[in-house]
């Protein structure tokens, strides 16, 4: 077991990690905390229907077209082809069961050979 547990554990760090779990709870429940009765203005309600897809795009796109915070300037990047293959599969199989699972599998089967094999 001595081999398994590596590194020095710091009590202050453990406390920080517990507090980070608290941040997860509080950020996701931020507007659940108050019991006060209030309703969202209608334009906010309408606007929020765009929030899920916008949040996903904001997280994904930089992960596909940037490296170390810089826009890539090459087409030799496995991520581009994996993402394209995944999207193509999705719209080909749209409506079938577990199409997102297929998107992951198809995307990775394009990504791994290009990335591991060719170093793209």
């Amino acid at each position, binding site marked *: 077991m001595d081999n398994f547990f590596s590194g020095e554990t*710091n009590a202050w760090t453990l406390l920080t990690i517990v507090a980070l779990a608290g941040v997860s709870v509080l950020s996701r*429940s931020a507007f*659940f905390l108050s019991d006060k009765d209030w309703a969202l203005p209608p334009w*906010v309600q309408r606007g929020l229907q765009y*929030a*899920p897809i916008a*949040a996903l795009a904001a997280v994904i796109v930089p992960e596909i077209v940037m490296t170390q915070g810089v826009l890539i300037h090459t087409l030799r990047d496995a991520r581009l082809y994996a993402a394209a293959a995944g*999207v193509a599969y999705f719209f080909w199989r749209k409506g079938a069961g577990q199409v997102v699972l297929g998107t992951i599998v198809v995307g990775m089967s394009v990504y791994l050979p290009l990335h591991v094999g060719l170093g793209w």
Partner: protein
Amino acid sequence: MILQRTYRHDPEFRHGVVDMLGVAPGIAAWGLMTGVAMVKSGMSTVEALLMAAIVFAGSAQLASIPLILAGAPIWVILATALCVNLRFVVFSVHMRPYVMHLPLRDRLIAGYLTGDLTYVLFVKRFPQPGADASERTGQMAYLVGNGGINWLTWTTCSVLGVVLANAVPTQWGLGFAGILALLGMLCSLASTRLRWIAAMVAGTAAVAAFALPLKLNILTAIAAAVVVCLALEKAVQRQPKTRADAGH
């Protein structure tokens, strides 16, 4: 109590589980690589295990690890995590009417379980909050089943990543499966022209604003997409002729 039996026996619980299982391999690969990254960056095994077991927020974890290792003050670390998590605050505005019938403790558990994918799947399945008690119970059953599987997959695989840190090859880039899972979710949401525009505006804005500190580019991108789409909605309403093909 939110983890009660009535939820587990509700048919929506199963739907929530099945919907999440479809993206679980992406979450699994991503969780695994996050576990590996925690150990490789120099956290002790005990610290990494605790973080993998309870924090349940991949991007906030990755942002806070270098700060922890550099000995940054705790408030700086927590403020950073909060900024990286600001999109969840936006989600909570959206989710509020769905959960306010619950007592506070259950609302906090529901919030903890509402990660990115659970939020997306949940509001996709339930565009409107439940009108009566049985609808609300069904919705919460879906949330618990869906978020529960997400938590279980993420946490198990993160812990596995910590344990197997030296056996998993990082240069393969297996974590990209997580991005593909999110990409598949994005495609399933792109049901109207305006939503496509929202995705394109947000993606472009997130790249353009990437230099902002604390991952604030994400929040900026969401705001930009919402503002642009609301403006376009208004413009479309003024021209009734083109309304039909713009979707809603």
